[in-house]
């Protein structure tokens, strides 16, 4: 994000996010604009997979023609192919967008290595160039229903991963307090509280802290803010943006909200349901202003509406999209 010039402010005229997209994103990688461009706003198609073999550094995540069909015959995702490159010094923020049943969570859980989605029925799921064998601490996961262990205080919840590694108590508590601070909780006030004493937003902060403390290379977030009220949601979006800038991790973020996907993402993947297919990958403007401000700007909304239109247009005929 640092190599990109600061976009103009909330100017309501043509110099908003839409034109910023044209000026900066479209030509950043010297690729022709995609033929699928929406009517009003040009949103560039992200680079597609070419020959994967000659890529020098291993990719952070790579899907090669991945399908998942369950024992009962239901196909969750079909022929998904994409990759995420290892950007030195920073990770990409990828948002996954689409209606229920389009396989967004399946993709997240395949990366995490969680059953029954893992293993894939066909195709390859590679993380750091190696096939995923099962879950591990290098791929942290945050769920929608803010999972915090009921029997553990905030401190012990956050320190759980380090406890499993056998780190001595004093040391892991010290680290945990730092992260608790980072996610915006008050260490003095909250560290000895139990999850049932916390609000939903606070519990989600605990869950995020428990993941961050392990410094994973990949963070998987499955609609983490879906159950929060709008005001809390904006605050959590701002939190995620600021944390992610420090973290240099690749984030996969599933959401139902186009606004959230466009705001948070560097790249948005759009999926269609039944069976889940990857319709489109779009580069979207980065979040460089507070969530509440930026998501009200006309230029931002222009992009959101363009994507909503695009999703609507693409959905009825999945075969016309990319498989």
């Amino acid at each position, binding site marked *: 994000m640092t190599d990109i010039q600061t976009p103009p402010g909330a100017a309501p005229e043509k110099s908003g996010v839409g034109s910023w997209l044209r000026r900066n994103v479209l030509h950043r990688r010297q690729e022709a604009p995609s033929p699928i461009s929406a009517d009003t706003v040009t949103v560039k198609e992200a680079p597609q997979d070419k020959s994967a073999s000659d890529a020098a550094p291993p990719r952070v995540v790579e899907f090669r023609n991945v399908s998942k069909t369950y024992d009962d015959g239901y196909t969750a995702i079909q022929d998904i192919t994409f990759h995420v490159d290892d950007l030195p010094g920073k990770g990409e923020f990828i948002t996954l967008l689409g209606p229920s049943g389009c396989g967004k969570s399946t993709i997240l859980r395949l990366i*995490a290595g*969680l059953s029954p989605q893992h293993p894939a029925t066909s195709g390859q799921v590679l993380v750091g160039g190696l096939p995923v064998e*099962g*879950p*591990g*601490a290098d*791929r*942290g*996961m945050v*769920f929608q*229903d803010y*999972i915090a*262990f*009921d*029997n*553990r205080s905030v401190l012990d919840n956050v320190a*759980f*991963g380090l*406890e*499993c*590694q056998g780190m001595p108590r004093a040391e892991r508590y010290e680290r945990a307090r730092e992260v608790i601070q980072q996610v915006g909780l008050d260490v003095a006030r909250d560290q000895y509280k*139990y*999850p*049932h004493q916390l609000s939903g937003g606070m519990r989600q902060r605990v*869950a995020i802290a*428990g*993941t961050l403390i*392990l410094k994973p290379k990949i963070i*998987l977030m499955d609609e983490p803010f879906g159950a929060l009220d709008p005001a809390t949601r904006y605050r959590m979006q701002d939190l995620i943006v600021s944390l992610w800038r420090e973290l240099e991790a690749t984030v996969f973020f599933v959401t139902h909200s186009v606004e959230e996907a466009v705001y948070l993402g560097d790249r948005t993947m759009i999926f269609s349901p039944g069976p889940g297919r990857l319709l489109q990958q779009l580069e979207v403007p980065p979040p460089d202003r507070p969530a509440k401000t930026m998501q009200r700007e006309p230029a931002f909304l222009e992009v959101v509406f363009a994507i909503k239109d695009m999703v609507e247009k693409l959905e009825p005929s999945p075969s016309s999209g990319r498989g």
Partner: protein
Amino acid sequence: MIRSTRSIFALRAAPSPIIGRLIGFVSVAALVLVWYLVTLGAPESRIVSPAILPTPVEVGQRLLSLITGGADSEGGTLFLHIAASLRRVISGFALAFFVGVPLGILAGCSGPVRAALAPHALFLRNIPLAALIPLTMVTFGIDEQQKTMFIFIAVAPFLMGDALVAILRVPDKYIETAQTRGASTWQIISKVLIPLAMPAIYSSMRTLFGLAVGYIMLAELVNADLGLGHMLLVGQRRSDLPTIFAALVAIATLAYLVDRGLAFLQGKIFPYRPAED
């Protein structure tokens, strides 16, 4: 306050603790009053014959003499009976706990173990309680060991089943969260599954302990010189109705106090998940 204007007759409304207790007290008092009225007057003119129902005053006096000692031969022995019954329940229950709960946790964690234990558990759970008396007498004699084993066999299969269910009911997402934070299988069992299942296991223990206090009376009808069941038997043999009723009141009170005590402990042991009543 909105609550104060809400009728206590509102659908599914819970009365305040004080009102609730008051209603409970009035309800018990009404029952005792009816009891008093139907046993009022000279023995011949009562609505219910003294051969069926003693007066509340008689029962109260007998209870008092059982507690403090008095003229009759059983005076002052109530606490000895209670202690004897509780000792048997606790020894059998402890055995059931140390066998049933680990087996249940093991079965909850492992599918093959679960499949192997299922038929045995089904069989043991379906042995009629009454059949356990002759069964345990054949194997364990008629002394204390038999009474312990009776409680053990009656309780252990249920304790195992409830521990199994408690483990299975911990939502998958807790396991998955632990996995994505690098926990090993053993760490998931010891740091996630067991602690999260414990409150449910404890609740089930609370219920089963209450039932076991009731079950022990059955075993005490045979060859016991102390115990609440023995007290009931003696009362029946002597046609001593006040003693039988006093024993029943003592049993109900004991069950209530034990349950309250266990509920109190629940709040202490699991502060993060308060007891549900």
